[in-house]
């Protein structure tokens, strides 16, 4: 079994900076990520001079990278079972850092299963992967700060942004804008976005009530106050802000809230030797993630002067996280049609679910959440729509080969 001083789960900005900061202090680090390269969601497919130093810093003899690798199970005695497309490993750690990032909250709306409808980050990822978007008409809808950089990105790639429809009210968005005043980099970013989106209609307080089309999305129906109107488009990018990926922390037994892993100011979770940084502590964005990457390395290496320095920086960045949560964390849901599919893996409709007693009944009687995504999409949606609680987290945390789980027979039964 491979053994490391520190294993970091997630090679986004938080995990990358933690890895480098730990390695430069002599720690042997394993950096695990599901993707083929470091960068996380935000730096996926990006290769410019702002990122190259962070990537280059991973080229250290003290860092072992495990890309295309998923954590399948967390085990007693500080071990992880991980799987890549070829094989599986048991890895041992002294310290574990959860830098598992976030994913978009996708909520059902009539027509959301039509081809042409994606998440906001989802459409960006598709375009980065080569999907042509030039001259396509796109409506960006939902809520969250992700809307702005993606709108700019799509416009730069030639998309025609028909409109941005944000659920939140204008006063609420203005209040959020005022918070940004304390973050000069963010202000310049915002000014830059605004400049690049001149001419794009922006609608606050606007809710998508249906996506129209028969074999492909051809438009969206939007409610704004008391009136409804139709927009014509080719693609609909709709998302409802971000939710942190908590399942690894929950599998380890760490306390969590729906919005974050519970941590101390020094990033310790409620389980010894386990830390959480970045979006896992609550959606805080890039600068916050980087600062927490530095701080966790200082904490693990007991570098007191660095701890003081980075703790102040983290506290500053976390104030913005609080403002983000206050502005975007409670997306509204629109009433669904009976035939709107809620569980996409098993084709379970709103009509089949709305009278179910609870999540367990929906799973047992309708098979809701029992497909390949294992409720990762519809679990959040049903929590939102019907108030159903989440499940206990069990291995496998992601679909895994039978042979990978069979490897667990080799763990000793008396290790505790």
């Amino acid at each position: 079994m491979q053994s490391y001083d520190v294993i970091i789960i997630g090679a986004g900005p938080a995990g990358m900076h933690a890895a480098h900061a730990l390695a430069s202090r002599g720690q042997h680090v394993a950096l695990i990520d599901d993707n083929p390269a470091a960068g996380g969601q935000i730096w996926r497919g990006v290769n410019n001079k702002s990122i190259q130093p962070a990537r280059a810093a991973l080229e250290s003899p003290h860092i072992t990278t495990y890309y295309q690798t998923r954590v399948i199970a967390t085990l007693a005695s500080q071990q992880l079972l991980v799987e890549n497309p070829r094989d599986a490993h048991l890895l041992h750690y002294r310290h574990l850092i959860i830098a598992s990032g976030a994913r978009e909250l996708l909520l059902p709306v009539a027509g959301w299963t039509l081809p042409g409808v994606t998440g906001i980050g989802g459409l960006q990822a598709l375009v980065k992967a080569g999907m042509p978007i030039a001259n396509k008409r796109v409506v960006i809808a939902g809520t969250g700060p992700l809307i702005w950089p993606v709108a700019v990105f799509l416009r730069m790639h030639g998309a025609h942004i028909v409109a941005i429809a944000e659920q939140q009210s204008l006063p609420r968005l203005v209040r959020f804008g005022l918070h940004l005043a304390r973050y000069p980099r963010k202000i310049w970013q915002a000014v830059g976005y605004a400049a690049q989106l001149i001419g794009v209609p922006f609608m606050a307080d606007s809710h998508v009530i249906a996506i129209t089309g028969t074999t492909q999305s051809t438009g969206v129906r939007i409610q704004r106050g008391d009136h409804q109107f139709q927009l014509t488009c080719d693609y609909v990018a709709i998302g409802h802000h971000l939710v942190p990926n908590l399942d690894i922390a929950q599998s380890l037994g760490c306390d969590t809230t729906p919005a974050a892993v519970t941590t101390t100011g020094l990033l310790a979770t409620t389980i010894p030797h386990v830390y959480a940084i970045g979006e896992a502590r609550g959606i805080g964005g890039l600068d916050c993630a980087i600062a927490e990457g530095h701080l966790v390395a200082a904490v693990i290496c007991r570098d007191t002067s660095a701890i003081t320095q980075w703790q102040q920086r983290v506290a500053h960045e976390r104030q913005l996280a609080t403002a983000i949560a206050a502005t975007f964390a409670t997306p509204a849901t629109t009433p669904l049609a009976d035939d709107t599919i809620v569980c996409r893996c098993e084709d379970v409709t709103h009509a089949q679910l709305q009278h179910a007693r609870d999540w367990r009944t929906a799973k047992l009687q309708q098979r809701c959440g029992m497909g390949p995504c294992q409720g990762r999409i519809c679990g959040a949606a049903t929590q939102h729509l019907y108030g159903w609680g989440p499940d206990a987290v069990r291995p496998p945390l992601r679909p895994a080969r039978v042979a990978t789980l069979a490897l667990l027979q080799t763990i000793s039964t008396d290790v505790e």
Partner: protein
Amino acid sequence: MSPSDVIIIGGGIVGCACAHRLAETGWRVTLVERDTIGSGATAAGMGQIVALDDSPAELVLTADSQRRWHTLGQANPLIHEYTPCGTVWVASDDEELTLAAAKVSSYHAAGLHAELLDAAALYRHEPNLRPGLPGGLRIAGDAVVYSSRSAAWLWEQTGGTLIHDEVTAIQSGGVTLANGRQLRADVVVLATGSRARELVPTLPIRPKKGHLVITDRYPGFIHHQVAEMGYAKNAHLADVDSVAFNIQPRATGQILIGSCRQYDIHTPEVDPHMLGRMLQRCIDFMPGLATLSTLRVWTGYRAATPDGLPLIGPHPHIPGLWLATGHEGLGITTSLGTADLLAALLNHTSPAINPSPYLPERFFPAH
């Protein structure tokens, strides 16, 4: 006794089948379920309809139940996801193949179809088995159902009253609920599986924990339920933790992988070591399983009795209390036979099979 009010505790497949049969014969049924209909071991189990011959009484009850499921399943195949796929029991060596030959005659004597398979026939039925196996036994009448939905369907037919609560005590002529309310009835049926001792601590029931794994969809990978013949030996007799190769094709094309047994463990968490042992056992029999993608692992508890037979009938010392529990790993199969037996005893009509091997009194010394 003329039919009147009955309270059934436990809305698993056994409780729901009893409710269904009693309602058909005129009883007014109240069902108390702490979770949701068809949860507990009903949801955790494989949904297998199998005729097993570890003992003559087991074969009689499972054969009777297998026929009842066939009738029910054929009438409503979509509701129950009734899939009459049959079972192939795999012999690991010549000794087990000899045993298989003996089993053919006992199944035939019970009026069931059974076919001895030589190696060529075995691989014709299940080509993904590892090479070098001598043969096996095929029981064509066995089937697979989606038991949680069957339980809900059986309950919906009754028109009875469903109470979502926990029973905290059974007393003469009724039960007390967790909310303090008392329910009255002439007859109380206890059908809470491995939890039966929470209400009647003297019952000879121990929980046997199991793990199951379900894969993504691989239609055609197997055609029958496929199990090692050692399964019965490992599963029902040994008093130690055991694993056995036992896999099943679901109507969705998914494959359900089992099985393992651990005594007296009360924590529902996945035991990684047992899970690994169980899956390695299955890969040993069917190497192609190794690369299939698993979606989910869960655990559950079977209600095991010392002789491997259920408790069906009146409690000998508690008037008005009837038992329908202790079905171990065969509760889905034997639920229908159990319900018919229990109803016949309560209605004083003649049961389809001899009730004496299953009567609870066998474990209680006479006063």
